[in-house]
C-alpha cells in the first residue's frame, strides 16, 4: 500500500482505475464504440488497447443494444465487463438491456445470478452538444430497482468509485459528467483505494445552509460556498456520490444542523434527482427545516446549442450564490 497521490484529470483517474482492475482481474474487460484504437470520445480509454490488446479492449459496431446485451450476458456468465455508452443520450436506444434485463435478472430469477456489469455513461452539458448530446438522465435510473447509480464529481472519487463499481456484483450505472473529466485533483495511487457506495462526501463545513449537489454542480456549489463565506454565510456542500444507494444520514444530519436545504442538479427539474432528495427531506427531515427547500435545476427544456443559451439554463455558481442569499 502506498499513501502517494498524484494530481490528475478526472478522465485519467477513470482510466487508472480501469487499468488497475484489468491488471488485477482477468475477467475485467471493456467494450464500446471507438474506445480502442481511437481511445474513446473523451480519451478516457486512450492507451488501453495497446496495453491489454483487442480481446479485452473491444471496439464495437454502433449497436448499443448489442453492446449492452453483450456486457450483461458476459456478466451473467461470470465476467466483469465495463460497457461504455458514448453519450448518455444514447441510453435511449438500449434501455431494454439495462432496465428489463440487467436490473431484473437477480430478482426475477430468484437470486440465481450475479450481474457484475459497469455501464459507463458520459453525460451533461459543456461541449455545445445541443439537445441529443448533453442530457442528464441519472434520475431515470433511480426509478429502476436493481441498479446502483454512481455519479462522482472529481478525479479521486472517479478512481475510488470506479474500482468499487467494477468489483460490485450488481449492475452499476457510472455517470461521468463531461466537464468533470477536466477537473484535476490529487488521486491516491494505492491500488486498493476504493470508496464504498452510499457514503456522501462533505466538501465544505458550515452551519447556515446545506447544499446537496451532484456531478459538475458540485464545483459550482463549492465556488458559491467560498464566495458566500466572504459574506459570512457558512455552507455545507455535500456530494452524495452515489444516488443508489443514497447516504440519507449525511444529508439529514446536515439539515438537522443548518435547517436550510438547497439542492443543485443539472437534470431537468421535473422528477429529477433534486425532486427525490427534496421528497426524502420532506418525509424524513421536515422537522429540521426552517425554510422552504430550494431546488436549482435546469428547467424542463431541451438543451440548446448556442453557448449563451446553454449558460442561461444550466445552474451556475452565481445562481447558487444568489439563491442561498435569498433563502437566508
Amino acid at each position, binding site marked *: 500500500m502506498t499513501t502517494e497521490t498524484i494530481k490528475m484529470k478526472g478522465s485519467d483517474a477513470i482510466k487508472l482505475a480501469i487499468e488497475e482492475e484489468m491488471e488485477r482481474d482477468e475477467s475485467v474487460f471493456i467494450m464500446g464504440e471507438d474506445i480502442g484504437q481511437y481511445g474513446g470520445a473523451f480519451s478516457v480509454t486512450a492507451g488501453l488497447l495497446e496495453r491489454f490488446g483487442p*480481446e479485452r479492449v473491444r471496439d464495437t459496431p454502433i449497436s448499443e443494444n448489442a453492446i449492452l*446485451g453483450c456486457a450483461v450476458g458476459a456478466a451473467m456468465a461470470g465476467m466483469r465487463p465495463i460497457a461504455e455508452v458514448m453519450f448518455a443520450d444514447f441510453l435511449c436506444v438500449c434501455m431494454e438491456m439495462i432496465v428489463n434485463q440487467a436490473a431484473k435478472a437477480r430478482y426475477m*430469477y430468484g*437470486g440465481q445470478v450475479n450481474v457484475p456489469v459497469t455501464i459507463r455513461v458520459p453525460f451533461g452539458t459543456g461541449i455545445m452538444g445541443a439537445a441529443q448530446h448533453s442530457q442528464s438522465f441519472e434520475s431515470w435510473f433511480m426509478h429502476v430497482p436493481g441498479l446502483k447509480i454512481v455519479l462522482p464529481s472529481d478525479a479521486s472519487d472517479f478512481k475510488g468509485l470506479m474500482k468499487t463499481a467494477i468489483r460490485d456484483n450488481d449492475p452499476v450505472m457510472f455517470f461521468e459528467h463531461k466537464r468533470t473529466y477536466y477537473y484535476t485533483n490529487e488521486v491516491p495511487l494505492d491500488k486498493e483505494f476504493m470508496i464504498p457506495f452510499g457514503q456522501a462526501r462533505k466538501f465544505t463545513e458550515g452551519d447556515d445552509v446545506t447544499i446537496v449537489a451532484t456531478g459538475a454542480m458540485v464545483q459550482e456549489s463549492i465556488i458559491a460556498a467560498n464566495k458566500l463565506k466572504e459574506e459570512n454565510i457558512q455552507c455545507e456542500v455535500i456530494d452524495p456520490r452515489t444516488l443508489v444507494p443514497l447516504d440519507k444520514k449525511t444529508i439529514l444530519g446536515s439539515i438537522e444542523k443548518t435547517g436550510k436545504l438547497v439542492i443543485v442538479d443539472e437534470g431537468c427539474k421535473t422528477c429529477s434527482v433534486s425532486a427525490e432528495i427534496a421528497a426524502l427531506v420532506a418525509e424524513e427531515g421536515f422537522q429540521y427545516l426552517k425554510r422552504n427547500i430550494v431546488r436549482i435545476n435546469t428547467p424542463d427544456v431541451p438543451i440548446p446549442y448556442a453557448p449563451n443559451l446553454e449558460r442561461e439554463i444550466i445552474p451556475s455558481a452565481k445562481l447558487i450564490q444568489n439563491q442561498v442569499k435569498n433563502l437566508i
Partner: protein
Amino acid sequence: MNSDELPKEWSSEESINIYKKMLMIREFETRITKDAGKIKSPLVHPYTGEEAIAVGACAAINEEDYITSTHRGHGHFIAKDGDVNLLMAEIYGKEGGICKGRGGSMHVADFSKNMLGANGIVGAGPPLALGVALASKMRNEGKVVLTFFGDGASNQGMLHESMNLAATWKLPVIFILENNKYGWSTPAQTATAVEDLSLRAQGYGIKGVIVDGNDVIEVYKSTKEAVDLARKGGGPTLIECKTFRWQGQTTTDADKYRSNEEKEEWKKRCPIEIYKKRLIRGEIIDQTMIKEIEEKTLEQVELSVKFSKKSKKPDTGTVLDDIYKNPIDIGGN
C-alpha cells in the same frame, strides 16, 4: 423408413430420451393449460406443437453449454434437463419454484443447468447470448450458446444488432428461429416481406438454413452442424425452424385469428407422432414401452402438481430479498 434415419451417434436410450422429453413438454403444457385458470395466471404461453425444436436443438449440445429462452420457455427448460417439479411450482408462484416464485412462467431459469432464463421481452435473449458466448470465447471454454427466438422477435432491432455482432466477432452462438407463423395474432407474412426469415443470414455473412421444425431429427442435425462450426471458431448460424403453435398465444387466448383448417392441418404433423413412428419402425420402442412412458410422464406431471400445491407461498417477509447481492436501504414504508 428404418432406424438408419436416427442419428448414428444416438444410442437407443438417447433416442428414447428424446421422445420422453417431447412427451413431457406436451403433457406439462396440457396440464398447466388446465391449471393456469385455477391459479389465475393468464400470461402462460404453452409450447405445444413446437416440442421438436427445443428438444432437437438441446440434444446437439452438452450439459455445460448454454441456452437463452423466450416468453414461451417451458419447453426449453425441460429440454435443458430442468426439474419439472421446480418448473411447475414456479408457475404456481410458490416458494419451491425454481425462481422462488419471483419470476413465474415468463422467467423460468435454471442457472445450474446453464438455462439462462425465459424472458418476457420479445427478442431480448439474443443480445444476452452474445455476452455469454463472448465469455466462453475469452476463457477458451469451447462452450456454445443456443439462443431461441420467434418470427415476431426476428423483426426486433435487437436481433439485427445481435446477428451482426455475433457474425463479426465469430461468437459461438446459434440463432434458433422458431417460426410458428404468428406473433400473437399477427401473421408473419403481414410483418415481414420475405417468407423465409433465414434469408437474413446472408446479410450478416453467416449460414442460414431452413429446417422442418416438427422433425426433431432434422432440428438436431442442423443444430449439431452449427454447433460443430461454432466450436471450431466458425461463428454463428441462423436456423429457421418452420413450425406452428397448437394453442393460442397464452392459455387464455381464444385464438380466433387462425382457422380450424390451418390448426388441423398442422396437428396432422405432430412432432411427437412423427418421431414415435420412427422409433417404432426402427424397433427402438414397442407399444408396451410407449404405454409405460406415457404413464410415467403423466405420473411425473401429476407429481409436479402435487409438489407445487404442497409448496408454500413465498414468505411476504422476503419480498425485498435479492434486489441486490447485499441489501441496501431502498426506502419504502
